[in-house]
């Protein structure tokens, strides 16, 4: 349903619709094992750095275009959040993996404003903003966030 204000919000009926997509994708990141970060790094032609921040691990993929992609993995090895900052929007199909289609399905146009987007589902949140030459966004799986970690405080 289009929003006059530009934001989108959908509260879908849970994880069932997403779960059926699970077996379909191989090289995804969000919701995938940590090893998929390396796949993303290769696919996006970026360099990867890893750091251990206690309750999760941070993988940074610096793209040659200038955009920085950060992927956050819990101690169970699952990527639970991804952020991007920089002059170009990265390949979201690659880094959202099996969640990309759900993102697209929820974000139907028109949007009154081309500089913001928010998709909120019970199992997937994608929020993005910015303007030409400066984009920011984050995608996370609310149910996979490690205990004690606040999405708003992820570096």
């Amino acid at each position: 349903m289009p929003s006059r204000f530009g934001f989108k919000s959908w509260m879908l009926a849970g994880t069932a619709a997403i779960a059926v997509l699970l077996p379909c994708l191989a090289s995804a990141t969000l919701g995938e094992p940590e090893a998929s970060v390396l796949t993303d790094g290769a696919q996006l032609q970026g360099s990867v750095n890893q750091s251990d921040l206690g309750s999760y691990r941070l993988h940074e993929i610096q793209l040659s275009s200038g955009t920085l992609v950060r992927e956050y993995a819990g101690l169970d090895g699952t990527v639970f959040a991804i952020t991007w900052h920089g002059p170009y929007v990265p390949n979201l199909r690659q880094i959202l993996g099996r969640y990309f289609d759900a993102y697209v399905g929820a974000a139907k146009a028109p949007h009154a404003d081309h500089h913001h987007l928010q998709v909120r589902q019970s199992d997937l949140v994608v929020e993005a903003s910015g303007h030409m030459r400066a984009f920011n966004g984050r995608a996370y799986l609310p149910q996979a966030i490690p205990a004690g970690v606040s999405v708003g405080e992820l570096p």
Partner: protein
Amino acid sequence: MRPTLMRALRHGCGLVICLSAISCGGGGSTLSAPPPPVIPPGSNVVDLVVSGGPNGNSVNSLFTTVTVCVPGSTTQCQTIDNILVDTGSYGLRLLVPPLTLSLPVLAAADGNALLECTVFVDGYSWGPVAAMDVLITGELASSVPVQLIGDARFPTVPSDCSSTGAVAENTVATFGANGVLGIGAFVQDCPDCAASAIPAFYYSCTPAACTNTAVALASQVQNPVPFFAIDNNGIIITLPAVAPAGAATVTGSLIFGIDTESNNQSGSQTVLALQTSGANAGGVTTIYNHQTLSASFIDSGSNALYFNDPGIAQCASSQFAGFYCPLMTSTYDATIQGANGISVPVTFDVGDAQTLPQSYTAFPGLGGTSSIAGSFDWGLPFFYNKRVATAIEGFTTSAGTGPYIAF
């Protein structure tokens, strides 16, 4: 009291204003509106209107009218209204249709057709680049590269383009406007593309396939203002004050040039330099609630003030998720700081997003949460009751050298 209706709204069928109106050599929207602020007449001033746009469902969206012509022609022209005025992008992009002029597509370096994937935050727009003369009020920009969005000659969107954005926005229904006039503080839309092929940006296309390509600066889609003969160093957007409850529509002015005419003098405006590169190119810093928000920007193409304040109640309704719905409108203080270190205190209002009547399209108190912690997006509500100048990179005014914003 808040209306309890969800205002089945959001389908854009409630308003009958501002339908697409296209003609040759004249025209534009006809709206009954409060009188605009007094601006000395001149050939460098064009009307602005905040309206529901072509789909009738926009809020805090600023539109104008442009005329485009086949290069060199004064007869093969088309005037198109409902063009978004966006200081957060660079270049003119027109939807096809309503654009029906026959325009040759520019050639990429290898001689094939030059196409562009324009990535917005909420989606992508695909189409070829064509040169045209752009006429806005008395200002002429000759042979400017413009993107034609949704051109049926090039129906196939490359997969890496569609992989960047949420949805395709290649029709008026999905784009929400007949085009967008990107007149921010930069000239080209992709200077990096001059040196190398940036993924999902410019493409060289044959009928069979498209490949990423580098594009010389001169062929890139770009801000038409630097093409004007005299009033080419920037723009001024001036909008009247809007009552806290909102307004059905608002009219204002877009003035071309800064310190080039009697009606565009800088006067005592404070100049805030914009960041020229990095992750917040074109942006500023905001200090709000004792926090320094270094990823902030001022943007006529954003329809609200987007920032985070846990002390302001968010809307309970999922229809308004992410927007603020305080019980009463309150005024807040912030400071905007330019890359030159100059700061300006500002005040802004945040009201209950759910109280905006369906028939209103302007709401100064519209606020929403920011998707990133370190950002304050000063969208169109910032522009109400102000005269905001945007000076283009490399151009000088009496007040300084762009890129800057002054108000």
